[in-house]
């Protein structure tokens, strides 16, 4: 392999996976792949138990993580009894208990019904704002993440083809992005069609709220 990948300034090639996993928490696309303990609480405790912490420290971390991911009510249930959405939240709690500074979520909502998907994304966004955690989401549907994402990196055939603020990339590269099979927000698509007909001129909105505001202003004229 060529090139270099840095996490907090340190090359990943020079670090062990166990060291890196203190910094970077990874939630797999399919939560079943990372849940294995007999109860939710034990599953969440597994990571911190392997860090050599005191009992009290482990207790505190587990309580905090379960609360932050909204899984306290599930603590005595077996992971396999849970719905896909609940499993996804338990996997998130297990990762949070490690107190990572970065969380990677691989298509975190693909198995979830739309309501649960919004809940999970909302919970993750709260963590980001309250704890300063960096969140990296792998996703090809932008309608859900458009409201939260600050930066978007677009990849095609193993390469980065666009990188910047979500609204800048969306506005500048809309046609190219749709050609890459990315599910673009429907409000952005609507706006691009109106723009093509010369009926609007502003930059593309990335979520419903901004489209409502922009259209209301125009229609009130």
């Amino acid at each position, binding site marked *: 392999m060529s090139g270099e990948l840095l996490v907090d300034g340190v090359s990943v090639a020079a670090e062990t996976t166990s060291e890196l996993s203190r910094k970077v928490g990874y939630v797999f696309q399919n939560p079943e792949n990372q849940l294995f303990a007999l109860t939710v609480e034990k599953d969440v405790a597994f990571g911190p138990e392997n860090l050599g912490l005191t009992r009290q420290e482990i207790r505190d971390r587990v309580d905090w993580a379960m609360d932050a991911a909204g899984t306290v009510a599930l603590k005595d249930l077996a992971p396999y009894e849970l*719905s*896909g*959405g609940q499993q996804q939240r338990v996997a998130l709690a297990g990762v949070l208990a490690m107190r990572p500074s970065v969380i990677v979520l691989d298509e975190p909502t*693909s*198995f*979830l*019904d*739309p*309501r*649960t998907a*919004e809940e999970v994304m909302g919970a993750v966004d709260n963590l980001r704002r309250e704890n300063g955690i960096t969140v990296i989401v792998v996703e*090809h549907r932008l*309608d859900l993440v458009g409201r939260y994402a600050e930066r978007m990196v677009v990849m095609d055939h193993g390469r980065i083809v666009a990188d910047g603020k979500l609204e800048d990339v969306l506005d500048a590269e809309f046609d190219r992005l*749709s050609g890459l*099979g*990315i*599910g*673009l*927000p*429907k*409000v952005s*698509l*609507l706006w691009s*069609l*109106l723009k093509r*007909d010369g*009926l*609007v001129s502003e930059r593309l909105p990335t979520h*419903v709220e901004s*489209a*409502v505001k922009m*259209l*209301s202003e*125009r*229609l009130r*004229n």
Partner: protein
Amino acid sequence: MGENGAGKTTLAKHLNGLLKPSLGKVTVDGDDTTKKSVAQLSRKVGIVFQNPDHLLFSETVKEEVGFALKNFGFEPSVVVKQVERTLEALDLTHYANTSPFLLSGGERKRVALAAVLAWEPDYLILDEPTIGQDYQQKERLRNFILQLNSQGKAVVMVTHDVEFVAECNPKVVLMSKGRILAQGQADEILSDDGLIEKASLVKPQMAKLFSQLGEFGFPSDVVDVHRAKMLLEERLSEVKIRVAQSS
């Protein structure tokens, strides 16, 4: 449509007799499913599971797609022709001699679909067909479903994908906790706040947008981009003319 655990997949499995009702009755073209074998019902009703790995087992894509045809007793020449046609239609021809297990999740889903479509069942049941598919694949799937419809075939789809449904505007049956909550045209159902809430769905973006543009006298049952564009185009051109006249 309906939330996780609503009973959508369970209902789908009743349609080809994989499950038989313990109460009530399921009929396919008037035949009670408890009186027919799965083999008999499958000739008419093809089910594509949510997880393609529950269905795939052959060594090559070509064999996989020909398997059911052989089992149904079609002539070898018909099998070959039908396999070719189906692979072509789903853009899988270049994978004909590849093992299905070497393909990506989205591609395996297409092979599973091909394996069922090959025998041309009258009823096609698709369980969450859009999961893991990118936008172009979804467009292809949408056109494919419309084409099957125009050939007089019924397609039943289990899905959470509100945006996909909004663009197709089919008849929707909404389920919750094992029961049917409501049924009607997609634009009615997906713009109904009460139903959306009960079924743990969210409105498509266009429905969210138009529900907040009510003060301008727009209809509230707009769910797809095409109709949204037509309505706004008309109104925005009027605004443009007014602005031009006043200046």
